[in-house]
């Protein structure tokens, strides 16, 4: 008992410490490193809370994908150091924001202590009815079943995010290839890693997406691993991002939300309504949608990291 209290206390203190370090870091790179540490500690905190899915999503999205995007942004910002320092908030602004954030945090802490105990929640009911859609993992049952509309809209928003990034490109680059070009690595640790890791990573990523209906895992977590494997090969110069005008890229991005939407509409005719799964073939239909979703998540994450088109196709 004491040991677990100590461990939790340590994790909580480290999370706060990493957050403070991130804010106080002297350089942008140091701040990103601090943020990565913060994300990993947060992953640990979620694991301590028994939320494996959230921990995996935090590691995949909050640490890996966000970390790469932040690092690329830092590298790009080096050219415009003056503009960046001019855009930085002044000391007074930082102090005011800190005070405000501190006050909100304190008020939240007090409010959380005032919440009813045990907390009213839907976990028990969701757990009891998880078998209805043939999904053993209660988190998957909630995401594909009860909160399907959230998930559908989020998957549509992911397509929007990619288009938002693309639309920041100059007009003449439209239709071209996103991101910087990396020289091909023939030897060295990166070259080795980029050739050895992807075959394993693709199997692991696919497995995590597949197992999501029964055990911790899912499309976002699996898709993120697949995207990371592609990213590794990209950084090592083995593969190039596809041109954004290419039809297969567009189709890969919309496959998940489109399949989800069509299956949802089919539910209006064949089952209890929009986003209901017809009992007779719920399992294969869910599997199909999840496969399309994994593809779309992987494509979207990889293209979000790659950024706007920069070169002619």
């Amino acid at each position, binding site marked *: 008992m004491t040991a677990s209290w100590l461990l939790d206390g340590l994790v909580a203190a480290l999370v706060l410490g990493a957050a403070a370090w991130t804010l106080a870091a002297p350089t942008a790179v140091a701040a990103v490193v601090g943020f990565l540490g913060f994300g990993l500690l947060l992953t640990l905190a979620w694991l301590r809370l028994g939320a494996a899915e959230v921990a995996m999503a935090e590691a995949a999205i909050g640490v890996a994908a966000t970390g790469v995007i932040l690092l690329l942004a830092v590298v790009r910002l080096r050219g415009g150091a003056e503009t960046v320092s001019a*855009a930085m908030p002044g000391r007074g602004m930082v102090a005011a924001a800190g005070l405000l954030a501190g006050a*909100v945090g304190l*008020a*939240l802490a*007090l*409010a*959380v202590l*005032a*919440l*009813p105990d045990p*907390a*009213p929640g*839907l976990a028990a*009911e*969701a757990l009891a*009815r998880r078998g209805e859609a043939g999904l053993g993992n209660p988190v998957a049952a909630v995401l594909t*079943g*009860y*909160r*399907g*509309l*959230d998930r*559908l*809209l*989020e998957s*549509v*928003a992911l*397509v*929007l*995010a990619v*288009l*938002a990034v*693309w*639309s*920041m*490109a*100059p*007009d003449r680059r*439209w*239709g071209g290839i996103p991101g910087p070009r990396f020289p091909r690595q023939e030897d060295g640790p990166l070259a080795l890693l980029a050739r050895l890791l992807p075959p394993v990573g693709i199997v692991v990523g696919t497995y995590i997406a597949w197992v999501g209906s029964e055990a911790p895992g899912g499309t976002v977590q699996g898709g993120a691993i697949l995207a990371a494997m592609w990213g590794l090969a990209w950084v090592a110069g083995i593969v190039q991002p596809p041109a954004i*005008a290419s*039809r297969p890229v*567009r*189709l890969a*991005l*919309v496959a998940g*939300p*489109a399949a989800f*939407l069509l299956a*949802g*509409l089919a*539910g*209006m005719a064949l*089952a*209890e*309504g*929009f*986003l*209901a*799964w017809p009992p007779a073939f719920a399992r294969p239909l869910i599997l199909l949608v999840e496969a399309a979703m994994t593809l779309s998540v992987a494509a979207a994450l990889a293209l979000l990291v790659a950024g706007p088109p920069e070169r002619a196709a």
Partner: protein
Amino acid sequence: MSGTTPGGWLLVFTLALPAGGMLAAFALGGRAAERIALAALGLGVLLAGAVAARVQAAGAPLAYLVGGRAPPLGIRLQADGIAAAMLLTASVVLLAVALFGRAAHATPPGVAEARAPFAFWTFLLALSAALAAALLGADLFNLFVALEMLTFAALSLACLDGRASQFRSELRYLFFALIGSALYLLGTALLYGAYGTLDIGLLAAHARADAPTLLAAALMTAGLLARMALFPLHLWLPPAHAGAPPAASALLSGLVVKAAFVLLLRVWVWVLPPAPAGAAAPLLAGLGAAAILVGSLVALRQERLKLLVAYSTVAQIGYLFLMLPLVLAGDAEAARRAWLGGVLQAASHAFAKAAMFLSAGLIAGAVGHDRVAALCGAGRAVPMAVIAFGLAGLSLVGIPPSGGFTAKWLLLTAAIGTGQWWWAAVILGGGLLTGGYVYRVLAGSLTVPPATAPQPEPQAPGPARVALALALVSVALGLLPFAAFGLVQIGRPGALAGAGP
């Protein structure tokens, strides 16, 4: 909790049509995106009209249980009076902006796809889906997802011209919007911790006036105020409009901030118990009054036409908040009038402000700049756009007959009826100031240019007709018989089902 009502499927299609259209437009690209957007937004008007007609006929909200699963586990879509009215408003403005955009955002000949046109048509569909989700959502987390979609779509539309200066202003908008979303989400999480449900109907039945609930409401309110640009959180709005294309400004000012307002009403009128809401409402209305006065005064002094119209939005948003203390005053008749006044203000401002931004864009295009002091000759070059600007101004000032007049009149009488005469003074003062800045633009535009001035180039009439049609709708709202407005009362807590205005 009631289940799916007859006609509830209309809500699914209202949401699925633009969402599916957006996916198809993204996949097919180029000119197909434009065709899909025009078709989907046209059908959207029909669907929104059908939803409003069903709600009006039934005298009760339409509801749809997604997946056949009832809250608290499932998610509910619902169209009550205010949702149906705002949905209809949004669908008409979206279609008008799409028709307006056919000239400015056509894919140039010779290329299969170009950046700005492709982004315009795809994000227009995305915005339509996000607005439908925000207006029809009855689940606080689902509404958060809608808010995020709304931000992405609106931001990208505003950045369409791709200028570095514009990116800087939009980054500020993004910061306000993201901090707003984070605060909203924190409040949502607190409410789930307190009640174990996020359904607005269930929360309305169970909410207590305890510390977690009040803090949650405060956080969500602060977040939504940042997104609505209520004074003093309005700093992002004028620069965000300054470099945005006219079509994007029209949508941002006309619709995007209104969706956040409907969410704010959901929190204040539905979720929060009446006692604390009524006690805190004068604070929000006070900010609204400050917005009316400061926004109008700053608009009067603007050098650039676009910024003048943008500051006018800051002011007109303020009027929406005056309805809160009047609706929550505990007087049934005043509440009914104030509610209708507020919704009518939101709708007529959406039409009028969209018309104003579109015509301001046409005026600036015709005279080659948008300096308010040097608009002479605009009346001769683009007469229809200047008339549209003037008619929209009529509605903003609150001159009869116009939707803006009816809205302000209802708020005024509700203020006097509940003994809160000071809000009436603000409404009248704001009207005078609005008249001032609208006059500045009209007087300048109608000045005859010197004979030596170059002849303006003739402009295609299509876009100006669209602006004029929007302005006429905002005026015509004031000519509708009061019985037609029974719709907006349907589903309001404290309103008798099917009661008149």
